[in-house]
């Protein structure tokens, strides 16, 4: 493997750690395991499948057309069409960013006992400093290395010896015997936490910034499968551990504090710090990715300079934008909103807006004017359309049910 390929793989793994295994995936997978055992494994599997295709498409699109996704959507479909989905996306990003900052605060709270409301501002400041002074590759590499900590979940899952037959059954969609509303709500939350639109913007902007070309296509494919596969495996690990630990005890998980002890029965005294560490690193990575991604989205809508590797002085509006976004998200967290509820809700909301983001994107990666002969194959197109449509339809039904009957 060439050095450039390796670098691309790092971008994939960071996109995966920051975008896949973050507070959303951890919360949804753990809650799903605790309530329904292995029954929702299929939701992780199918959304990952959709995600792999979508990540591959956004990398390929950027490499061949030399355009970041948000730039291309405005160019191809025009300002009028673009503005509403953009606004929705920025709004959802803001909620998810708040949830991620909440996740970092929570990781610290678990260890120190300090309240989230007091931690939100200092954590946001730290996040801002990292983005302001850091370079893309520095942020990528440190998150990727620290994120390897999450392997703890797979190790724990392995040590718990899950029944392979029962596991495999979980990959086939089935109806729950009870709690149907919660079940479907969790299924779409899993889809929303896995297929996050900000990941495509982050990944395609990174690919443009690192000047990918047609030679990058093979490594792009490997990265999509490897990086997202890695994230998927970790999520499955979380679900299995949670199912094995919580389900037999009939514990209704409704706060992060309960989730925190999930690793302890298996990994002993290392369990708790590893959980807090994984949560903190993943959420921090995701928060960095979200703040940048929202900056890219806005800068690419209006045509400003952007890029994580330029100095803030050379891209004043872009830098100001992500700074404001971080402040707003921190303010949301200081209101004392319950971070677990905020997370689950914003993940389901992501699933609702998915079609508005994915449909234009699909048309672009199938447009010869932009990608020449590198248009998408029918398998990828079909998988993406089915996953996205099913997720958003279930979301539209499940969210009102959850809000009406749920907690």
């Amino acid at each position: 493997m060439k050095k450039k390929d390796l670098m691309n793989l790092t971008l994939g793994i960071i996109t995966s750690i920051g975008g896949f295994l973050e507070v959303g995936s951890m919360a949804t997978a753990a809650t799903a395991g605790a309530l329904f055992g292995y029954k929702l494994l299929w939701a992780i599997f199918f959304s990952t499948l959709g995600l792999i295709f979508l990540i591959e498409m956004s990398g390929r699109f950027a490499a061949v057309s030399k355009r970041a996704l948000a730039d291309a959507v405005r160019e191809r479909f025009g300002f009028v069409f673009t503005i509403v989905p953009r606004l929705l996306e920025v709004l959802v990003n803001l909620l998810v960013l708040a949830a991620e900052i909440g996740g970092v605060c929570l990781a610290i709270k678990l260890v120190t006992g300090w309240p989230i409301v007091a931690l939100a501002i200092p954590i946001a400041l730290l996040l801002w400093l990292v983005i302001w002074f850091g370079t893309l590759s520095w942020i990528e590499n440190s998150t990727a290395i620290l994120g390897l900590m999450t392997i703890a979940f797979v190790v724990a899952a392995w040590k718990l010896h899950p029944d392979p037959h029962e596991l495999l059954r979980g990959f086939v969609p089935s109806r729950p015997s009870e709690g149907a509303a919660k079940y479907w709500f969790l299924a779409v939350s899993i889809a929303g936490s896995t297929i996050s639109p900000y990941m495509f913007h982050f990944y395609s902007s990174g690919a443009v910034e690192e000047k990918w070309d047609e030679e990058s296509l093979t490594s792009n494919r490997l990265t999509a499968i490897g990086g997202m596969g890695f994230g998927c495996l970790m999520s499955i690990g979380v679900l299995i551990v949670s199912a094995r630990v919580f389900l037999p005890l009939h514990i209704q998980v409704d706060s992060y504090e309960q989730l925190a002890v999930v690793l302890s029965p298996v990994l002993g005294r290392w369990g708790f710090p590893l959980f807090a560490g994984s949560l903190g690193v993943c959420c921090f990575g995701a928060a960095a990715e979200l703040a940048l991604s929202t900056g890219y989205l806005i800068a690419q809508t209006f045509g400003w300079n952007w890029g994580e590797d330029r100095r803030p002085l050379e891209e004043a509006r872009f830098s100001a934008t992500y700074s404001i976004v971080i402040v707003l998200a921190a303010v949301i967290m200081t209101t004392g909103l319950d971070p677990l509820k905020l997370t689950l809700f914003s993940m389901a909301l992501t699933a609702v807006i998915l079609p508005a983001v994915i449909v234009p994107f699909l048309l672009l990666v199938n447009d010869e004017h932009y990608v020449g002969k590198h248009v998408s194959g029918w398998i990828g197109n079909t998988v993406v359309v089915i996953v996205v449509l099913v997720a958003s339809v279930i979301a539209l039904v499940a969210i009102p049910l959850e809000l009406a009957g749920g907690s």
Partner: protein
Amino acid sequence: MKLVRDVLDKQIRGRDGEKLGKVDGIILELREGEPPRVAYLELGSATMARRISRRLERWAIVLNRKLGVRRPRYRIAFDRVLAYEVDVKVDIDTRTSPAFAWERWFRDHIIRRIPPG
């Protein structure tokens, strides 16, 4: 050249490669008995807002006037277009262009004041 596909809503870059904005509008000049001339590219918040509604355009104009940093719309003569491939490249010095006024404002009034800007 297909004006909608190849020019409108594309990224504009100046001579120096800096990003100046997007092609928010294109001005055609109608002439008696002759084909319309493609006269200007237009960019700015008022041009963008007008594409959504007249009311939004009025708000953009008032807001720009109050803030006094940049004109609500700004035109680039079409014969300054050097290339239109991935981006529309124009023969304009970005750093002194009025279209870059907000970028300069943010740089000088906010970013530069943040240590160690």
